[in-house]
């Protein structure tokens, strides 16, 4: 009940005309960036992060919520219209969604996605409101050993589950950890790996790394491939996004099933919302086959509804674990954590006591953002496709100028521009050789937490490593971790065996 009153207060602070304007601007900008090919929601947040610093914290986070959800909407819009998902979480939506668009049902597909995202997001936001304070209370019993376990869990789970090569995932993670140790050590004040460069004393800024890896690296990749692989085809969508009663009834159970799959994944850091979207898609596919309808492959509305709902449900609960535990489970959440730190706020159990206005305002703005988006997306979805009419050269040129603007505006130093270029080139190399980028972001964000909590734990126990597994929570964490890794290894092995089997039959045929 207390949560409800706090939320109403939150609505009170979020519903000022100025903040409503920020939500609207955020939704628009987020969707605008999200619909650009190759640019996902995390890129939207990264690009617009420096601009929010001009606002007061509440306004900035409210705008952020808009950008975040807007970016997610934009991702799936493009996944459906152009078969170019902006983000891993929209990949599952391309399978049936793009087929729907191809068969001339693009507006219905967009409406299905929009309503699915709305359903998933709404239900998870409601849960967050009641769950987050409990999660925060629960997390106060976390000590250094538990935090280290949690960080380790996030590290291993992301790098092993997300990528198709565990080695590459781990390498990306370690790179992130390495970037995070540069600068003055927070415990002892020792200078580390700065080579005496004063700009490095504060460490390498997360904003620089994010923009470099996600945005600039992508620009370089497009430049390196555009002449060879220009294949992007436009699909005209026209008409009103209108779902018939029958279609709505058909999609409804899929929306709900997708939501329930997505919800728990936001709290478990297994690398953002890709996993639940694929699980939801797989479930619908299996159900479809069992019921004998065999709609899949021909543009099944359920095959689009479920992953959309799952993806946004995960996003909502991911926000809960970011706010209550200070644990970012996706690249986007990692960037938001950086934004909190920019304002001198540390997400985690104490945030609810220290800055209740901000937290509840942010939660309230989730609801507002979602409603604004539904209003924006249903009628304007066909219009968004028009953004693609900007020729690629000018589109990416504009993006690059915004990148350097964002970095120079936040740091005011040319050194950071060189840093941006250097890390951007590394980001390009990683894309070129299929090395996942999300583990790097997670490593960089959680690296300091892992280090300080590990050192604190060992310090207080006098160097006894047994302290790391001495509490029930840590034991459970490590057991779940072993289970997750074992499960993904098992799945991968089964997949490989199946692929081998297919190859054999191909050869026979």
């Amino acid at each position, binding site marked *: 009940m207390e949560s409800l009153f706090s939320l109403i207060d939150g609505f009170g602070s979020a519903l000022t005309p100025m903040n409503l304007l920020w939500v609207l601007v955020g939704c628009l900008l987020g969707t605008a960036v999200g619909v650009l090919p190759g640019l996902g929601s995390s890129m939207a947040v990264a690009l617009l992060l420096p601009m929010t610093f001009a606002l007061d914290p509440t306004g900035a986070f409210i705008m952020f919520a808009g950008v975040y959800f807007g970016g997610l909407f934009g991702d799936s819009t493009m996944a459906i219209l152009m078969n170019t998902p902006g983000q891993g979480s929209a990949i599952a939506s391309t399978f049936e969604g793009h087929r729907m668009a191809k068969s001339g049902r693009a507006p219905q597909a967009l409406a299905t996605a929009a309503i699915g995202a709305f359903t998933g997001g709404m239900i998870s936001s409601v849960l967050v409101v009641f769950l987050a304070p409990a999660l925060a209370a629960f997390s106060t019993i976390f000590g250094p050993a538990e935090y280290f376990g949690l960080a380790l869990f996030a590290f291993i789970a992301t790098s092993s589950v997300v990528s198709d090569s565990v080695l590459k995932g781990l*390498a990306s993670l370690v790179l992130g950890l390495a970037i995070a140790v540069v600068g003055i050590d927070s415990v*002892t004040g020792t200078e580390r790996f700065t080579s005496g460069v004063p700009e490095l004393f504060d460490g390498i800024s997360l904003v620089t790394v994010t923009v470099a890896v996600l945005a600039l690296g992508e620009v*370089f990749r497009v430049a390196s491939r555009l*002449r060879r692989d220009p294949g992007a085809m436009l699909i005209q969508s026209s008409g009103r996004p209108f779902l018939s009663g029958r279609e709505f009834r058909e999609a409804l159970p899929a929306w709900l099933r997708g939501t329930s799959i997505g919800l728990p994944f936001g709290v478990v850091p297994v690398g953002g919302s890709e996993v639940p979207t694929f699980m939801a898609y797989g479930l619908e596919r299996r159900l479809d086959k069992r019921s004998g309808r065999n709609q899949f492959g021909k543009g099944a509305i359920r095959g689009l509804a479920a992953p959309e709902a799952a993806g946004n449900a995960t996003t909502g609960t991911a926000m809960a674990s970011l706010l209550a535990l200070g644990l970012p489970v996706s690249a986007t959440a990692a960037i938001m954590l950086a934004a909190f730190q920019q304002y001198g706020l540390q997400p985690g159990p104490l945030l609810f006591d220290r800055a209740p206005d901000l937290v509840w305002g942010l939660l309230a703005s989730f609801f507002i953002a979602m409603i604004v988006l539904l209003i924006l997306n249903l009628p304007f979805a066909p219009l968004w496709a028009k953004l693609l009419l900007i020729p*690629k050269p*000018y589109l990416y*040129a504009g993006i690059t100028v915004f990148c350097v603007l964002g970095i120079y505006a936040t740091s005011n130093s040319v050194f950071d521009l060189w840093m941006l270029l250097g890390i951007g080139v590394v980001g390009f190399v990683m894309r070129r050789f299929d090395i996942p980028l999300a583990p790097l972001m997670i490593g960089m964000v959680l690296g300091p937490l892992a280090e300080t909590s590990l050192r604190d734990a060992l310090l207080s126990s006098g160097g006894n490593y047994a302290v790391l597994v001495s509490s029930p929570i840590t034991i459970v964490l490590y057991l779940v971790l072993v289970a997750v890794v074992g499960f993904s290894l098992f799945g991968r092995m089964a997949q490989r065996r199946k692929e081998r089997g297919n190859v054999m039959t191909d050869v026979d045929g």
Partner: protein
Amino acid sequence: MSTPTNPTGASGAAAGESGPVIPAHTPDAAAEIPVLGTEQIRERGWWTGRAGLLFPLILAALATYMLVGQFMMDVAEDVDRPGPQFMPALIITAMYVLAVLIALDIVRRPQLPEMAVVTDPAEVGKVHARYSDWPRLAWAIGGVAVFAVLLVPLGWIISAALLFWCIARSMGSVRVLFDISLALLFSSAVYLIFGVLLAVDLPSGLIFGGGR
């Protein structure tokens, strides 16, 4: 994803192994778009599919930089253990181990990128030197480098316009005059909105007597 041992995805891989040019193999000839073949890359002997060694090299180079830093680190005698070198030691070890493992993996199984499908008749039969389009990439990377050099001396408007033009050029735009006008318009608009309206501190150019 596509390894040479996997016959289903071998259209690109085969080109690398059995000679400089291989007749185009079209996996789905039934598709509506006229598929004229797959992209061809020049054979590079042992290096074919092993360019990925660049990444472990970067990893090892960074690890070496950190190892040197580790020894040069000025740690007070009385710090609490585990000290500031504890975590970096773990990271450096992991970086070396992973660099070696990834390198071994690439040496054992060369990894070719997924080749593009050629739909433009003018592109058929062209054998590219490398998978990445280096001349264009150079325009993009060079553009950012030039921007970083010129920002303070020339100011935001000129250097950002130059950057815009370089990136547009790297994406294949050849209308020089139009691009430069558009670039100047764009950078001026950004300067007005961010530099003037939002009071972001953008340099106006030393040679014009402006400050930083």
